[in-house]
């Protein structure tokens, strides 16, 4: 069974229908490349997957479980959407690092906030446990609980920091741990952004034209990092203009045009034997641009 299953996604902005029924599926550990001309709905699709936009229609299944159903509005409150988002990571075209934090803090911030919330909830439940106990017992229980809490806090902190160090190593920026974003090149910033997105261990990592804002000589280092992430565990969706990258790295390619999937298949099928005329025209055009 497919790991991710998107069914009939529709999205309208006012009168403008940007997604006109998109369905696709993806297996665990696969890389999906989404190509197509600008304005076709690629970015909107990615934003819908990350719930930055809420689709008007459609469903999303993750690992066989219904994660999102546009028709069940009651289940799509702010807090619930926030929880659903955690299954997805997103790397932006413009990096969007937090400028006031170091590279390390950028990576650890969200996990730390989540951990704090968990500890707070734990504290509350501990307090509940103590209620109604006799005085002596209460005291003993409280001492025990605060010990557990301190251990939990330390453990979480250590785990978050260790994970951040590992991720920095993976994107090749261990030496930039304490630098601020403005001190980094665009390519380095994007690599930090990738590490930041991975810190929360999303099920699926999405990239929105990750190299479009970079100077040509910097795109290579970012693409190399993305390629390096490929493993049986990490599932990725990459919206890209880099046809070579899509051809060489992706397992599956989708060509989106005018809010619909015009063509899909393996890179070989899409790039070498495109069936649709639109795909042929698009590929011809992007080939010309490269020369």
């Amino acid at each position, binding site marked *: 069974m497919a790991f991710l299953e998107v069914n009939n996604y529709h999205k309208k902005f006012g009168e403008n229908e940007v997604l006109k029924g998109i369905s696709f599926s993806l297996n665990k550990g696969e890389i999906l490349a989404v190509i197509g001309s600008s304005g076709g709905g690629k970015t909107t699709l990615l934003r819908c997957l*990350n719930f930055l936009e809420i689709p008007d229609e459609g469903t999303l299944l993750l690992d066989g479980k219904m994660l999102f159903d546009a028709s069940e509005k009651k289940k799509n409150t702010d807090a619930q959407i926030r929880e659903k988002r955690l299954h997805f990571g997103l790397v*932006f075209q*413009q990096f*969007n690092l937090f*400028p006031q934090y170091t590279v390390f803090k950028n990576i650890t911030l*969200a996990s730390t906030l989540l951990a704090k919330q968990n500890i707070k909830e734990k504290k509350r439940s501990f307090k509940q446990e103590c209620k109604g106990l006799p005085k002596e017992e209460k005291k003993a229980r409280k001492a025990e609980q605060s010990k557990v809490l301190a251990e939990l806090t330390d453990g979480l902190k250590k785990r978050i920091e260790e994970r951040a160090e590992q991720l920095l190593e993976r994107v090749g920026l261990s030496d930039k741990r304490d630098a*601020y974003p*403005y001190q980094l090149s665009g390519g380095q910033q994007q690599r930090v952004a990738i590490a930041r997105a991975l810190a929360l261990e999303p099920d699926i990592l999405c990239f929105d034209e990750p190299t479009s804002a970079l100077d040509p000589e910097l795109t290579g280092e970012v693409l190399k990092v993305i390629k390096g992430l490929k493993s049986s565990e990490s599932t990725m969706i990459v919206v890209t203009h880099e046809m070579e990258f899509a051809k060489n790295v992706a397992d599956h390619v989708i060509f989106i045009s005018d809010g619909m999937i015009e063509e899909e298949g393996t890179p070989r099928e899409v790039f070498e034997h495109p069936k649709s005329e639109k795909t042929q025209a698009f590929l011809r055009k992007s080939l010309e641009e490269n020369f």
Partner: protein
Amino acid sequence: MIGKKIMFWQVTLNLFEGFGVTCLIFAATLVFALPLGLILAFGSMSKLKVLKSVVKVFVWIIRGTPLMLQILVIYYGPALLFHWGFLDRIVAVIVAFVINYACYFSEVYRGGIESISKGQYEAGQVLGMTKSQIFFKVVLLQVVKRIVPPMSNEVITLVKDTSLARIIVVEEILKVAYDYTVRGLIWPLFYTAVYYLFFVGVLTLLFNFIEKKLNYFRV
């Protein structure tokens, strides 16, 4: 000669008392107008169209009329229109200043908040942060950095605007000095500049310090 020396110290001391009133107006205005301005800023950015329009019209009226007029309206208005008692003079002045400056601050805040790119909010969202976490942990410090220069302008203007309080006979420093001119002594009036310059000098240093403190990152 000795008479003149005593005179100088006397004036210095009297002006210092007036300077105390000036500082009181200044400090009270900041304490209340800084948070009130933030509330107005959120109002002017609200999704509720009615609230947004009400706030915008209010800010337009306050920024569109002289502060001196507002002081007069707040002091005399309730008594003349509804036959209520007069507010304490200094209270009336502070109320007028707080309302006036909150409106100016609200526009500075709004400009700062709206200048933060949408990408910062979205980055927070996809990392599972709540709205308040995004505001306090991601956006706020960037806004502060952006608004320090325009805020230092407003705050320095406030120092000198306090002299408007004399319109309802509040004994701030310029009023004290002006009373000397009526008695034929003009130099105390010019002497007040020393107090103002000193005050603004300290504020300038303070704002430079804050700017430097926030220089470790760029937005």
